[in-house]
């Protein structure tokens, strides 16, 4: 299946006058197929790579366990807050796995799992959420941008980075994650437009999990699908079943390939569902019913893949157990490591505001130093 290419930034047909003006109808954009693309449970699943799918499965199981562990840590007071991705693991994992080492991931505040699946130490991924310093790692080391809390603001960053890499002749693709709610922000619009005009090697993955906190998609947009937004930027738009990791992976990898080959950006909407509340602090019963949640639970990303792989003999009980054990081990380590009280030096407050401390900051640092010394003495 291919996505028809759209006219790129070079299209300047509209600066000649109407009498001579002819639209490039031969390159007219296709509307995205409003049926989410699926692989699992369809004949296309036959061609799945067993090795890759087992890896996906192991990561899904680990991701689910990671979610459970992180939520448990909020109850133990070890995390201040955790936005769960239970139900969305297929998107998170596929996003992490589709990238090459030199590529960049731009996660939103919800996407610690994608960062972890890309190889980031979970403790480093979670510093923000435990109330420690914001970014517990060097973004350049992992090519993972800091988690972005202000919604959609990370999208222009991804565009700028991808554009810079292309200008420098480097083979780098940026993959930016955003929620359905985030698509309403002006930054979403500006980022997609810049990406299309610059033909930047960037892929936008919208995880449409049905809600922006309590606000359902129907109050967020009147478009047939969020993928339809691609049309207005002149880039391909794709709709995919976000709980079908094989499908998400395929659509993503096609988009990444196109970006890498100079074919410009793609907008992908992955239809999924946030099974748990917005965060541990949220009460989802205020805005949605059990029936909806239950229906989505029956379309669980881990089970979908497990069912497919076992039915096809690509996964057996041992394989399942192995994945579970690995996940448990990860969880145990994470639990243990998160139980260690983090040690922060208050004097670090003044260290990185600027490359060089201003006089004012030096003064304030001295004041705090004196206060801390006095405390220690008393």
């Amino acid at each position, binding site marked *: 299946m291919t996505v028809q290419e759209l006219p790129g930034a070079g299209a300047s047909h509209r600066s000649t006058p109407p009498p001579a003006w002819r639209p490039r109808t031969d390159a007219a954009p296709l509307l995205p197929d409003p049926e989410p693309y699926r692989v699992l449970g369809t004949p296309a699943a036959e061609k799945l790579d067993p090795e890759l799918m087992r890896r996906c499965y192991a990561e899904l199981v680990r991701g689910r366990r990671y979610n459970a562990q992180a939520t448990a840590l909020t109850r133990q007071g070890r995390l201040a807050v955790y936005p769960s991705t239970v139900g969305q693991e297929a998107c998170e994992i596929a996003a992490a796995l589709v990238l090459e080492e030199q590529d960049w991931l731009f996660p939103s505040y919800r996407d610690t799992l994608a960062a972890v699946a890309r190889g980031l130490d979970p403790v480093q991924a979670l510093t923000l959420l435990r109330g420690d310093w*914001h970014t517990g790692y060097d973004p350049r080391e992992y090519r993972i941008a800091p988690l972005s*809390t*202000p919604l959609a603001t990370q999208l222009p960053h991804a565009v700028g980075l991808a554009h810079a890499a292309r200008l420098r002749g480097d083979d780098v693709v940026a993959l930016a994650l955003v929620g359905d709610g985030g698509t309403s922000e002006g930054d979403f619009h500006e980022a997609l437009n810049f990406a299309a005009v610059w033909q930047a090697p960037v892929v936008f993955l919208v995880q449409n999990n049905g809600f922006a906190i309590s*606000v359902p998609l129907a109050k*967020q947009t009147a478009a047939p699908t969020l993928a339809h937004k691609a049309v207005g930027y002149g880039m391909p738009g794709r709709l995919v079943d976000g709980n079908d990791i094989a499908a998400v992976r395929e659509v993503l990898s096609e988009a990444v390939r196109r970006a890498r080959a100079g074919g410009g950006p793609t907008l992908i909407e992955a239809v999924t569902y946030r099974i748990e509340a917005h965060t541990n602090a949220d009460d989802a019963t*205020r805005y949605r019913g059990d029936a909806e949640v239950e229906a989505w639970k029956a379309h669980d990303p881990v089970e979908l893949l497990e069912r497919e792989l076992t039915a096809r003999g690509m996964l057996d009980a041992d394989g399942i157990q192995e994945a579970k054990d690995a996940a448990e081990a990860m969880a145990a380590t994470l639990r243990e490591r998160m139980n260690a009280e*983090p040690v922060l030096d208050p004097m670090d407050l003044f260290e990185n505001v600027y490359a060089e401390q201003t006089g004012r900051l030096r003064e*304030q640092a001295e004041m*705090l130093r004196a*206060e801390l010394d006095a405390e220690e003495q008393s």
Partner: protein
Amino acid sequence: MTTVAVKPATMAQALQRAMRDAMAEDPTVHVMGEDVGTLGGVFRITDGLAKEFGEERCTDTPLAEAGILGAAVGMAMYGLRPVVEMQFDAFAYPAFEQLISHVAKMRNRTRGAMPLPITIRVPYGGGIGGVEHHSDSSEAYYVATPGLHVVTPATVEDAYGLLRASIASDDPVVFLEPKRLYWSKAQWDPAEPAAVPGIGKALVRRTGASATLITYGPSLPVCLEAAEAAREEGWDLEVVDLRSLVPLDEDTVMASVRRTGRAVVVHEANGFAGPGAELVARIQEKCFHHLEAPVLRVTGFDIPYPPPMLEKHHLPGVDRILDTVARLQWEN
């Protein structure tokens, strides 16, 4: 006179009540923002309003702050009184162009023909363990923008009264809600809410003779605590609650400082070019010959809001206030 025992109410409840009463009295009052409808807001300040007044009067908007405020401008142009909720301090920033270039200027540019009675509620400040972008004290931006009123309550009673006054104002009001006081309680009778104080009157919350602490919003309780503690050191501190940053009630402030001869301004916002700077500049101008010592400030450091685990070092606390009072040249 007999006093009726009333149950304690929280600031959150008083704010909710203020909107409810305003909506009941005036059909042009509309509440709008992210999650304000069905959910009742992430802090539940708008709880029940959608149910009572319908989703058209208390509306869950799409997630886009410039769009929210811009739509509110249009609604106000048509005669409605929008009450906009910004979910957190830092999430008001996308709406700054609408705020600065339209909300603040519309009355002036139309020479009074088209005032914009918009109330913009912004939960602000730290001390709740919030992660980045959830604890900013962004009042410096608002006070530096002529055309806006900037108001912030520090008590349950004021929360009600000032919000009613803000919604009733024909001018745009940035209504800053000290989020760590949302759950603070006081004896307050929702059935008999106090008379609505106008915007722009400060209040002496505690009288004293040695020096004046000038503060507002989340720092008021800290200052009152410091004033109590100061008695041990022999200082009798007066505490002024500004309640409104624009307009600024200079009469109350100057009268107090002229009386005490010493002043400290306390706020959570960064010190550098924060609202305290204006107060200090004005006090030294108006009270120059009454001052026994320079006017000092106790503020947040000049840093981005710190990680929650370090915020206690950043926020003005009792000790730092007392240390600063001690520097008011008492030996003179």
